[in-house]
Structures are given as structure tokens and as C-alpha cells.
């Protein structure tokens, strides 16, 4: 399995044709206490850059974009009852959705962990 990152602070775990998407620990730290996550519909066909989910903190709503194109096959139902999972475990239990990749070449433009860390350090 390989993990990729975007400059919108999402992580993408890829296993074969399936990608799991969430927001990074840096992102959850910036957003603060998360009180609601609106996940996409199962079956939704997302193009890279589309609005895919909404994450709501006490103060504000933030969009989560589709890091890669694909068809949504699963969403994290645990977030419905416990949105704070995104704060406590952003890069594991707090994942948002899974999709079947429609264009694996998009992964070439994403960052690896080292590049993402350098990107965050430069902010």
C-alpha cells in the first residue's frame, strides 16, 4: 500500500484500484474541534478537484476535494456518530471515503510523505 498527499491536506491510501481518502493531522489541527462530516453518496462519480465532502468545526464549514477521480464505494459511517474521530485519528480511523480509481496516472502528481512534510514545514 502506498500513501500520497495533496496540497489541500488530504491523504490517499492506494491498494490496487481502491483509494481511501481522509484529511491530514495538520488539517484537523487547523480546523479545530470537528462536529460534523458530510460524506459523499455511495456511487457518486467524482472528478479530481470536485467537492467530495464537507467538514464542519464549531466555527466554520470547509470543503474536502476529491484528491483523485473515481467512484465512491464506501463511506466511513463511524463519523456520523463520532465526528471527533477526525481529530483523534485523522490519518487512520477518521478516514472519509473509499473510491475506485478511474485514472491512476493522477497519483503521479501527488506528494509522498517526505514531500508533504516539507510542504507543511514551509507554510
Amino acid at each position: 500500500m502506498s500513501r500520497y498527499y495533496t496540497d489541500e491536506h488530504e491523504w490517499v491510501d492506494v491498494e490496487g484500484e481502491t483509494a481511501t481518502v481522509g484529511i491530514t493531522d495538520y488539517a484537523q489541527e487547523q480546523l479545530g474541534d470537528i462536529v460534523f462530516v458530510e460524506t459523499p453518496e455511495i456511487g457518486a462519480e467524482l472528478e479530481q478537484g470536485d467537492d467530495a465532502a464537507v467538514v464542519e468545526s464549531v466555527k466554520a464549514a470547509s470543503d474536502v476535494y476529491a484528491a483523485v477521480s473515481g467512484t465512491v464505494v464506501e463511506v466511513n459511517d463511524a463519523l456520523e456518530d463520532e465526528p471527533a474521530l477526525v481529530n483523534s485519528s485523522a490519518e487512520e480511523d477518521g478516514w472519509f471515503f473509499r473510491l475506485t480509481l478511474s485514472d491512476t496516472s493522477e497519483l503521479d502528481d501527488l506528494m509522498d510523505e517526505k514531500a508533504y512534510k516539507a510542504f507543511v514545514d514551509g507554510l
Partner: protein
Amino acid sequence: MSDDKTETLKKLPLDSWHRDHGGRMVPFAGYEMPVQYEGVMAEHLWTRENAGLFDVSHMGQVQLEGEGAADALEAIVPGNISALGAGKIRYTLLLAQDGGILDDLMVTNTSRNLYLVVNGATKHDDIAYFNAQLSSDVTLKHLEDQALLALQGPKASEALAKLNISPMQPDWPVPTDLYFMEAGPFMWGDIPLGISRSGYTGEDGFEISVPAGHAEKLAAALCALEEVKPIGLGARDSLRLEAGLPLYGHDMDADILPVEANLNFALSKARREEGNFAGAERVLAQYPDKADKKRVGLFINGRQPIREGASVVDADGNSIGAVTSGGFSPTLQKPIAMAYVPTALVETGTEITVEQRGKAISCTVADMPFVPHNYHRKPKL
């Protein structure tokens, strides 16, 4: 609630103190201000249970001095300022000539002058409007060298008592003797303080005007107490929303009249009878319940917050109103909002629909405050 401006942001007297305490600074009302320290949720709950210290030095502090000050002010506010006793505070509205709300403000009769606290984002326009109204026998002073700190929460009084703040005269009351909406002059060592028992959280608390050069010393002394932590703008917003208190520029503006804003209590009886304040004819034509729309509170059925800008819609999806503030209530652990709705829908318990990002969300009109006020009111005789 951020009012981003491209112009150069000003720094608060406590700027470096906020940064040293981990404050995350954001642009607001032309200043760099701390939006949070340890997190909005924790700061909010701390204030409801203990005491929080808020830096509100961006707000405008203004003195009106002179024989005709109260009368001059009454021309543009609907509050009974001339009847305000010494040491008493009144909440009132600054009205345009057409009755639209230009700002909301606190007016204190200090007995030597009128002391006004106005919103930061509107203060320069307010002052220009005051100056245009005032005759030559009234002088306006913008107290730009004063900082303003708010200490809010059920333990605010026991915390403030530990500072040994004394009255200006030995036989005058100490700060904790003040009741809600009373104010007085005090000394903390050799530092003069103007202290009001008032605030913007729904809790008991104080607002303290202190010379800017001494603000850091006062903030440090308060935050050294076990009851007190610094609190940012994020929690200030969620606290005032739970308390049902409107935020100028969001829940009211120049296109909104006082009755629409559900602020009938700010139209004092004597002033309604005189009918001689700016826009009185238009304002009073709506009094007490003849406005077409009104500001109400909303509970959201579900867990998704609705935000400022979302539309209130009818059964056909037509926009009939707007959400003006919305967020998650840390105290109630569910989303709450304020919205303008047609008068036919203002009854508590009325079901309404809000549309946000193309999604219909069902809401129920709720009584405000959402969380009961906890003011230290003077006992009724």
C-alpha cells in the same frame, strides 16, 4: 465572522501576549486578533464553568462630555439616555435617519460624562456620525489609548475579588458589589480602571477599561488565577450565539429595523412616546409586532450545522429568509442558528426548512437564549 481587509492590520496592545500564550491570530475588524488558544470547544466550556479573559480592545471606547450630551445622543439612539442614573449602563442602537441599525452599543452614565462602547468594525463611521450630530457644547473623545478586557463566567467575580481592586473613594463599593449593567471607576494599585458588570457571553462578568500600557500586567495577573484562561474570538462567537445575542454586521445591519431584529426592549417607553429619534416614524410603525420578518433562534434537526448565508425556503424552494449566524453549540452539543423568517413563522416550535449547498435541512424555531443567562442582577424590591 472574520472581516478580512486587504489594508494593513493593526495590532492590539496585547499582541505579543496573545502570541506568547499560543493565540492563533486572524484578521478581524481591522486588527490581528486571537481566534483561539487551546481550541474553541475547550475555551467555550471553560468560560461556562470557570472564567475566561477576552481581549476586546478592538472595540471603540468613546466619551461624550458636556451639558447636552444625553440629548444629542438621544437624537440617534432610541434608549432613554437622559434618565440613565449615575453608574448605570444601557444597551442601545445607533440608528440611521431611516431607522436602519448602524451599530449596537453600551452607554454608561459615569456622572462626569457618557462612556460608550461601540463595535470595532464600525467605530470610525460611528464617531463621524456622532460628530455630525453633536453641538459645540459637547466634546467627543475617542479613548484610543485604553484597552478593554472582558472577564466572563460564573467564577469571574471570585477571580476579580482576588486582585485587590479598590474604589476611588474609601466608602464606595468594590467591583464585585456592582450588579449587572452597573459600572464604576476603580484603582488597581496606581492604575485607574473603569469596570462594568456586563459582557457578551450570557454569563456573569466584567468589562474592564485599562490604560493600554498596563493591559498586559492586568491580563497576566488575571490569567495567573486558577479560575481564568485566555479565550479567543471563536468561543466569543459561540458563547454569544448560545446567549441569543446578535452580532452587528451579521444578525443586523443598516437594512434592518429594531423590531425586525427582535430588539423591542431597546425601544424605551419614554422614547417611543416622544418619537423623536432618527427614523422613529418608520421604526415605530413596526412596533410592537408589525414587522414582515423577524430574527428568531433555530434548532437544527440533525447534527449538521447551518451557517450564515443559508436560505430559509418555502415548500416550493423559494427563498423567504436567511440564516445570519449559525454554528455548533458546545453547551448543548448540537447545532443552533439565528435567522430572519416571515412573521407568520416566528412562533416557537414552527418547523421551517433551510437550504444549504443544495440540501434541504429541517429546523425548528426555538426560544432564545438557547442557554439561560446567568447575570448578577440586582434583586427586585
